[in-house]
């Protein structure tokens, strides 16, 4: 019951607050409204930093674009035809958001292939360039020789900024004289933004952002297009700052380039980091705390310190001004939060990743139940029945694939024909080129030469996520899950490329999208039940024992609805019982789903037991191909690989 009361209580407080403030004569509505604008900005930044994991050090640039779009469109400065029109504010706020989003795309587009801290520096560069440009575009003179085609042209108001800016107009609402309407305007915009962000986070798009944040390569190989996903994060993050910027400009009635410097970007970053990147509640909390600290605590403490100084008689304290220290405290805050509570005030407390041994131990304690064929999700069976009608007998044809790394020829003219519905074992000593072969088939690496044809169509030049959409899924030798996402979310990311919700769909949730999302969740649960992880759907992937992580990776791959599944050492690090369970699982996937499986495996018992055919690689060359019995007798294989007798290799 108390939970149910919390929301109405919050709404009531927010609605009553400005009138209480007026009644008591506190005059804090202005400051609170400004704080809410910064919180809105921080929420937009949170999409980029918290969800998509892209550190943006120049977010104030988008704020500036929003504010200047409003300022210039709704001001007499440049003679905008919109100025003075009663409805211009309501039009300009959308134009400003659109312009910020466009700038987000413009900044995002060239930088998408840049990762991590390089991306951060590029955003910082844009954050520096925008205020410089705004300052200088207020007074442009172009001189070529003695000819001046452009003389003292003013595009942005330069250092003086833009002034005045048109106010919003609503019949009977005194935006000119009263701060309270502003408060409600910002409250409505903020609440709507929060509502939209909340829905985006719980959609296919929000999951894609987080998958990119967790592991970009794995996301790409699970069918998430990193480029469009990142662009979307930039554009949406920017559009929210467009709203914030235009309200800011209209409220202040004047803007100058100084309001959008690097410090503002950092203050917003402080809000996100302090509250906990990725948590909406946390970012609101962080934003409010920093605003209160900045506007109230510093000045009040200064009074207090001065009072003590006068009482005790220390002149240094009497003249102290803590507000001068504000950026020092922001810096200190960033350092302390990162050192003491890197997940932020409201973030999930996570323990460091345990490496290796301990988790192996856990999986001995709770042996996983063997997957039952009758638990196989019906939708996967349906999919198999439909996909099986294809004409070609071989599902994948690889011809003359060659790949060099510097002087090393990792793969040399390798041919492989994979018949539909077969299990093909790929074996060879360490460094034989097996994983390189997988990387080429899944598009992570481009071959130097050779042809790859999947179901009659060439795979040349396709990015990994496009290949997943064609129907090839994979697992990784070293497990690559999305560690900070739940088990269920990991599987849902696998379904990403089979779902269709757009931004509008994710926010507005028409019945089609709601049904699609429900179906996706049902499917993911069925898949987890089949794989034996249904009790752990809401655990974080990182907290699973080793064997479960391997199986979750297979479930995630199955969720992409593949027709060809590439398993890279699926039994590595498993105990004999888990290995047996997994072998049964692989066999049933082929039998029941008509799935073709390509398998890299060092456990000879597994490979020989379930493969229809085995291909042996050695130093990048295919040295043998045949049935398990033939391979065991093959002289070159014995020489290259089994010659010294069967020795299990140490697993990484």
């Amino acid at each position, binding site marked *: 019951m108390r939970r149910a009361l919390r929301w109405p209580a919050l709404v009531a407080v927010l609605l009553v607050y400005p009138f209480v403030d007026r009644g008591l004569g506190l005059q804090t509505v202005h400051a609170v409204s400004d704080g809410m604008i910064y919180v809105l900005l921080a929420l937009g930044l949170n999409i980029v930093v918290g969800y998509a994991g892209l550190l943006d050090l120049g977010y104030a640039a988008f704020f500036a674009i929003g504010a200047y779009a409003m300022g210039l469109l709704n001001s007499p400065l440049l003679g905008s035809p919109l100025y003075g029109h009663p409805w211009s504010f309501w039009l300009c706020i959308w134009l400003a958001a659109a312009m910020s989003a466009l700038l987000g795309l413009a900044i995002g587009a060239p930088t998408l292939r840049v990762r991590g801290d390089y991306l951060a520096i590029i955003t910082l560069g*844009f954050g520096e360039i925008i205020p*410089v440009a705004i300052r200088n575009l207020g007074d442009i003179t172009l001189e070529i020789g003695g000819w001046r085609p452009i003389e003292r042209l003013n595009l942005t108001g330069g250092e003086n900024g833009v002034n005045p800016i048109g106010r919003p107009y609503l019949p009977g609402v005194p935006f000119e004289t009263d701060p309270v309407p502003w408060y409600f305007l910002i409250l409505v915009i903020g609440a709507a933004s929060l509502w939209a962000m909340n829905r985006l986070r719980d959609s296919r798009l929000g999951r894609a952002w987080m998958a990119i944040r967790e592991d970009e*390569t794995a996301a790409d190989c699970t069918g998430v297009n990193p480029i469009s996903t990142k662009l979307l994060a930039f554009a949406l993050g920017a559009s929210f700052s467009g709203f914030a910027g235009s309200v800011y400009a209209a409220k202040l009635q004047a803007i100058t380039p100084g309001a959008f410097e690097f410090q503002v970007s*950092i203050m917003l970053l402080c809000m996100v980091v302090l509250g906990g990147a990725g948590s909406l509640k946390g970012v609101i909390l962080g934003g409010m705390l920093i605003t209160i600290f900045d506007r109230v605590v510093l000045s009040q403490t200064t009074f207090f310190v001065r009072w003590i100084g006068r009482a005790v008689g220390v002149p240094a304290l009497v003249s102290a001004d803590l507000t001068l220290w504000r950026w020092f405290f922001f*810096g*200190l805050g*960033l350092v302390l939060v990162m050192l003491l509570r890197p997940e932020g005030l409201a973030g999930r407390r996570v323990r460091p990743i345990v490496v290796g041994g301990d988790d192996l131990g856990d999986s001995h304690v709770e042996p996983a139940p063997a997957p039952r064929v009758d638990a196989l999700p019906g939708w996967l069976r349906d999919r198999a029945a439909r996909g099986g009608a294809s004409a070609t007998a071989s599902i994948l044809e690889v011809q003359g694939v060659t790949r060099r790394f510097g002087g090393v020829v990792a793969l040399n003219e390798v041919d492989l024909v994979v018949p539909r519905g077969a299990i093909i074992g790929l074996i060879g000593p360490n460094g034989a080129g097996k994983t390189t072969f997988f990387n080429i088939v899944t598009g992570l690496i481009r071959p130097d030469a050779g042809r790859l044809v999947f179901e009659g169509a060439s795979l040349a030049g396709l990015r990994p996520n496009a290949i997943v959409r064609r129907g090839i899924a994979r697992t*990784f030798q070293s497990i690559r899950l999305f560690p900070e996402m739940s088990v269920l979310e990991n599987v849902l990311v696998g379904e990403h490329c089979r779902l269709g919700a757009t931004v509008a769909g994710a926010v507005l949730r028409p019945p089609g999208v709601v049904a699609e999302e429900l179906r996706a969740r049902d499917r993911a649960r069925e898949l987890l039940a089949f794989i034996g992880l249904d009790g752990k759907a809401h655990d974080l992937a990182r907290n699973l024992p080793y064997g479960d992580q391997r199986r979750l990776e297979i479930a995630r791959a199955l969720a992409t609805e593949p027709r060809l599944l590439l398993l890279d050492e699926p039994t590595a690090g498993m105990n004999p019982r888990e290995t047996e369970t997994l072998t049964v699982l692989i066999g049933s996937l082929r039998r029941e789903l008509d799935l073709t499986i390509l398998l890299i495996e060092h456990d000879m018992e597994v490979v020989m037991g379930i493969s229809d055919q085995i291909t042996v690689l050695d130093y990048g060359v295919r040295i043998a191909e045949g049935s398990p019995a033939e391979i065991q007798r093959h002289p070159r294989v014995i020489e290259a690989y089994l010659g010294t007798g069967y020795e299990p290799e140490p697993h990484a």
Partner: protein
Amino acid sequence: MEWWEVLVQQTINGLTRGAVFALIALGYTMVYGIIELINFAHGDVFMLGLFISLSWFALLGVTKTLTGWQLVTMLPLVFLLTMLSTAILNVAIDRVAYRPLRRSTRLAPLITAIGVSFMLENVALLWKGPAPISYPDVFPSVDILREWFGIDSAIFVTTKDLLVVGATIPLMLALNYFVARTRWGKAMRATAQDRETAQAMGIDVERTILLTFFVGGALAGAAGLIQGMYYNIGQWWMGYQAGLRAFTAAVLGGIGNMPGAALGGFFIGFLSAWSDQYISARWTNAIVFSILILVLVFRPHGLLGSRPAEKV
């Protein structure tokens, strides 16, 4: 001034600016090479180097231009003291703000680095105040062309220009020798390539990282001292600007690559001097950052660096 005299003059200006950028860029690139951190506070260590050197001069009673034996004793002493101070400062920053985060995500130490940068800037602001401070003219300034060679030219080259080159080049050569030829340098290179393997080979990785911060800080201190003596002015915010330009230089040369950083420093020096002259000083920052963005987008591993493959 003739057009070619303007060009020569601006090229000389670019050379002296570039020398300072190069010294700062080396510190960026060394730290990035070893722990893959953009040490955002590095530019502010440079700025504090200028302020600290000022205090050392004051402490040693130097208030006016040095001459004769004072020049050969006092100046090296102040260089040494300043470099030692900033080296220790840099090591302390690493200990407090970066070292606890070695096993954390890569963005965590970058965020603390920004925090430290803000703190250092504001310490300087509160220490010296918001107005630019004047730096005493400790190094003699002689118009070389006119007074030494008797050439009457519009080009102005002074002994201060010689100081910049004469201090920077030996420092770079010493650094190169240190990294390429000494045991410690070898440990640094090994740690930069593969921290875990280096550890397995018996290298004390933490001590090597400490050494890297120490050397980088010392170079930043030297750059601060040179900057102060050359321009006779210092501001609390200069570290941010200089740091970004130096970082651009490091990226341009291929971050982690030391000759590249030195080269990049000079390139950015020339570029900013020419841009000030031929375009407009107010656009120079935008131009430098555009170059930074272009390099990162089209050749993210710099002009001299090579692209490492991601292990899957």
